[in-house]
């Protein structure tokens, strides 16, 4: 029995095995349990990014677009030649990298959360319909899912962004095209088994309408899966946004994003390494935080997974 299992069942379990040997399994402090530690680190990182995104204009030492060509490519404060005025150094136009990294969080959070909600709504609705009605409706919706799964997404996004122009709305729309399928697949599979359960039969027997059965009885039972997919989906959305911005096809160039900062840093990163390290680190830590939180959420809903994941 692992510590994690012990934590699920009782606070203190007394196991007698072999007969004359008594082993006491104390539940360790919450921060010592692997799952909780991951969850706390992940949650902390995500909270930090959210706070930074909201407070960026207040906490950033300089406006993100303020240029100072005299001070271009100044190294970080702790490196020889650096100055305390630009903690993370400056880029090729003399813009403060720390301020741009802080402002970059806004786009990641905005695109991440908006896309999450829209794709979640579309995917869940289609998944519920496909799973509940089955038959031809299911066939058509799942065919659509299969088709979208086949498309190499970066390529599709490149085409759409090039055709329809760069804007936040198009960017969110194009990432939704990729994300709804994941909700749809998982929710549909859950509904397929949920609709056979006794409580659904009971609701039918009481004369509940289809809408009522789906919304009041089936949907609440998919919340666990929904929260797990949502956290992992958020990580993917942030990565996709950064990738598209890196290729110069994300939000309009005037808005600072981590991806576009990395793209602009490419010609200068050797020897001015700080231009590419800090924006990359911001993406990495954000995605890491969201993934760790996702692991924690999944473990919380399904303790069986603690042993295998």
């Amino acid at each position, binding site marked *: 029995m*692992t510590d994690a299992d012990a934590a699920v069942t009782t606070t203190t379990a007394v196991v007698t095995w072999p007969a004359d040997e008594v082993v006491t399994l104390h539940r360790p402090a919450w921060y010592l349990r692997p799952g909780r530690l991951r969850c706390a680190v992940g949650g902390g990182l995500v909270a930090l990014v959210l706070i930074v995104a909201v407070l960026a204009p207040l906490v950033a030492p300089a406006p993100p677009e303020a240029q100072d060509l005299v001070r271009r490519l100044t190294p970080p404060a702790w490196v020889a030649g650096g100055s305390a005025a630009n903690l993370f150094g400056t880029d090729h136009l003399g813009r403060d990298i720390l301020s741009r990294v802080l402002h970059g969080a806004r786009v990641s959070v905005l695109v991440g959360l908006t896309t999450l909600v829209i794709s979640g709504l579309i995917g869940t609705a289609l998944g519920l319909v496909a799973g509940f009605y089955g038959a031809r409706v299911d066939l058509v919706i799942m*065919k659509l899912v*299969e*088709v979208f*799964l*086949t*498309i*190499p*997404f*970066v*390529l*599709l996004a*490149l*085409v*759409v962004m*090039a*055709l*329809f*122009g760069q804007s936040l709305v198009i960017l969110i729309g194009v990432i939704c095209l990729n994300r709804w399928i994941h909700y749809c697949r998982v929710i549909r599979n859950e509904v397929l088994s949920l609709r056979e359960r006794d409580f659904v039969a009971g609701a039918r027997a009481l004369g509940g309408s289809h809408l009522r059965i789906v919304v009041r009885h089936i949907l609440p039972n998919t919340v666990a899966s929904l929260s797990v997919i949502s956290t992992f989906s958020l*990580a993917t959305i942030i*990565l996709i946004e*950064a*990738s598209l911005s*890196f*290729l110069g*096809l994300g939000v309009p160039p005037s808005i600072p994003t981590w991806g576009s900062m*990395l793209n602009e*840093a*490419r010609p200068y*990163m*050797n*020897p001015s*390494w700080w231009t*590419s*390290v800090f924006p*990359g680190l911001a*993406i*990495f*830590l954000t*995605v*890491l935080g969201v*993934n*760790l939180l996702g*692991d924690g959420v999944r473990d919380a809903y399904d303790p069986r997974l603690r*042993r*295998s*994941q």
Partner: protein
Amino acid sequence: MSTFLTTRLGASVLNVVLIVLLIFVLLHLAPGDPADQLVPPDATDMQREEARRQWGLDRPLAVQFFAYVGNLVRGDLGRSLYFDEPVASLILARAPATLELGGLALLFVVSTSMLLGVVAGSRAHSLLDQALMVVAVCGVAMPAFWFALLLILIVGGAFQLLPVAGRLSESVALTPITGLHLLDSVLTVNAAAFWDAIQHLILPALALSGPGIAFQSRLMRSNLLEVMQEDYVRTARAKGLREVAVITRHAVWNALLPMLAAWSLLFVFLLSGSVIIETIFAWPGIGRLAVQAVGNRDYPLVQGIVLVFIVLVVLVNAAVDILAAWIDPRVRYD
């Protein structure tokens, strides 16, 4: 099995048709007149109308679609607006570079992730397992393009160990036969070219495979842990087999079956990744051509590349499904 094959291949063909339709609709939904790409900006209305008629843009959408499909069936992907060459030959010329890079990355991902997953899974909850999984969790969170930039910065820049751009140094001569530099250098017994090509390949292949390795190692580990709970593993242990034999002979093979589906997703992931990685390493493959084509608003070329990528994915998916059904007959009856 034949019924399964027919159904599966039928579904693949239907997928391709639906995707072709989707791309076609998408391109025609885009704002602006495609004729703008065909005539100079100062063209008169009459010249514009003439171009529209010449390229068939004045015909009903359904007619245009069937004409387009007809051309596709004959292998005609159209003509690039920017390069003024047939799209098919442009793609074919760059295919070997992408194939070589993708092939090596696939090899890296499959071999490394299996090894790491089995090592971590067979010593579950040990220090080694936890260390490997921390690396894997970080690897999954690392954007491929940042990993690529870090590799260029550290391996290519600070230590100057490996080249960071192109497929072959200018000073190295190689007679092209297949276009695959590694194969060509072996066929022409050219050790210098082989060594140079390998050196150019390592960094892009590593950058392309990094996140895949991290993700697939975690998957392999959890599959192995699941299989280790099965009765046949307990039986194998009970009959006195060493743990190594239990894992290599009984557990690993059964843990591999769920990996098949992950490998077909991996293929899509690598194709998508190649677009970014080829751009960063100036790798003359199809991915970089796609970015250039989008930049040049070269729609026939973009359309051709998207189509080729998608047909490849559909073929690989079908092959993986058929392989899974062949290995595990239960799949056929799902």
